């Protein structure tokens, strides 16, 4: 029996790849494919996977950036749990993100509907509405610093002209986060273009059919446009979650970093606090623990958005 197998296998041993049921061409393709994606594999391991694991490791140590990290187990996480500023920064970030996402969806949808109007010069309007999203966030933030200044800015002059109060956007803790939400809307052109592509993808036959039913503009929007746009909205929610939770530049530029979170810690956000711990207070271990928690929070929130999506996202089944 054994001899039989030996006899059968020794003269013509099956090629290595066949043990994994791969033919000659398939093996060639596998090698070629891996060769072509090898830059990504190297980059993934060197600049993502390794730093990611390294972050988790430093999170268990006390480390100032110099010398050797000192293993302290879960101490950073225990300290994190008791750190009021950590909770404050998490609260502020989630508050901001929770406000910026729905406002962003409404603004992007409004812009996209306007961009979709059949007026001949609409490309010009599209370009203007998209323009603020290509300029640097730091520059837009500096502009906002003067634009929303209660004494020197024109924004508040316009508000007062229509009878609204003169709001100290960056000095009043009640309005500071709202100011950041308004700032974020100037980047809505990006999402609006994606929404616009979604609008253009809706088959006109759907609207024609509802017109025969005598549906008005509002009913058409509610019954056709909105359901057909839900996949795009889902994409925008994920994008908004990721950018919202990472907010850094705008806060660093507008509210300064010395002391961070002015006024009254109302803009102390997660990433700026992480940055300060790591790069200003010399607590790399603590900052790494924060980074790891940030990843978990992002993942959990994205998971919940995806899980809820099968209840409200409409997928074309035909």
């Amino acid at each position, binding site marked *: 029996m054994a001899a039989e197998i030996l006899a059968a296998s020794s003269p013509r041993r099956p090629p290595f790849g066949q043990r994994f049921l791969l033919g000659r061409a398939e093996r060639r393709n596998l090698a070629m494919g891996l060769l072509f994606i090898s830059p990504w594999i190297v980059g993934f391991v060197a600049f993502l996977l390794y730093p990611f694991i390294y972050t988790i490791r430093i999170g268990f140590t006390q480390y100032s950036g110099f010398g050797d990290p000192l293993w302290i187990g879960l101490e950073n996480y225990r300290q994190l749990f008791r750190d009021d500023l950590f909770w404050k920064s998490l609260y502020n970030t989630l508050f901001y993100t929770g406000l910026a996402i729905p406002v962003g969806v409404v603004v992007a949808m409004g812009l996209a509907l306007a961009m979709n109007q059949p007026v001949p010069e609409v490309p010009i309007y599209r370009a203007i509405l998209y323009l603020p999203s290509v300029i640097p966030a730091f520059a837009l933030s500096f502009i906002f610093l003067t634009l929303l200044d209660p004494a020197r800015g024109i924004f508040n002059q316009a508000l007062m002209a229509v009878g609204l109060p003169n709001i100290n956007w960056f000095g009043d803790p009640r309005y500071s986060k709202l100011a950041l939400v308004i700032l974020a809307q100037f980047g809505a052109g990006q999402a609006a273009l994606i929404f616009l592509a979604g609008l253009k993808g809706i088959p006109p036959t759907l609207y024609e059919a509802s017109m025969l039913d005598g549906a008005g503009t509002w009913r058409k929007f509610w019954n056709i446009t909105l359901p057909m746009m839900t996949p795009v909205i889902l994409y925008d929610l994920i994008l908004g979650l990721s950018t919202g939770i990472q907010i850094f530049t705008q806060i660093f530029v507008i509210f300064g970093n010395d002391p961070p979170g002015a006024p009254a810690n109302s803009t102390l956000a997660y990433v700026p606090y992480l940055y300060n711990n790591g790069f200003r207070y010399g607590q790399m271990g603590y900052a*790494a623990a924060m980074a790891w928690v940030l990843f978990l929070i992002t993942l959990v929130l994205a998971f919940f958005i995806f899980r809820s999506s099968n209840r409200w996202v409409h997928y074309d089944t035909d």
Partner: protein
Amino acid sequence: MARAIAVQTPRTSTASGARSSSVRKRFRSQVLPRIVLILMCAIFILPFYWMLTTALKSNDEIGAYPPTLWPHDLRWANFKDAVEVFPFWSFLRNTATITALTVLGAAISNPIVAYGFSRIAWPGRDKVFFLVLATVFVPFPVLIIALFDIFARLGWINTFLPLVVPLFFGNAFWIFLMRQFFMRIPQEVSDAARLDGANELQILFKIIMPQSWPALSAVCLFAGLHAWNDFLGPLIFLQDETKYTLAIGLTFFESQSQYDIRFNLLMAASALIVLPVIVVFLMFQRVFVEGVTLGSMK
């Protein structure tokens, strides 16, 4: 009276009725959207207007209350003064170098990787590609502590390497964008070339790339924009003043005197940084728009 006329001349009445309804239709399809669009555009252009007008105001005028809508006299000298607040030209050179290298890295790496994920059929390809997409769920700030430490050990801090080298290994969004484009090209094109004895690199550079300029230029533009607009990266990895970028340069206005920022000069410097972006955008509008929509498709 009106009723009397209507009774007397029913035909004109219906005609004018039809005209008024067509006027209303015209208003709803042509006039109303324009009003809304122009209002929206006015809001979205406001930051640029404010930047430019503030940049041209005198020191006295930026302190004026209420603020003036248009500068009394245009102080073009502000631009000359603004570039002296921080070493503008040296920071511009740094930013331009980083931007050029970033574009180069993105232009080389993303098409090659995207080719491997779209034009070659290999077992497990789509599972690995799913992993590529999953990487976007690791926010960059999560990695900054570890990356800083790793780059510090390599001696890369205060060099452009941490900002540039990773771009030579592909980026999930841009790989995705190129892959979407490559997938549209019929597979028969590659099969025919293979029968003619072309190898995969030849197919990529001689057949696929010449058809993919829109995608490649979108990736280049996005990469250039990413580098030019980056704030957190330079803030962390560049600590020596000679290596700073324009983004960091603007913060000099704040650190100079925190309570009395010279807004006219700050806005003049901002305008100089924003202007190239606007010019590039206006020149390549179509590429931007196609890139954004291509990169968002499921």
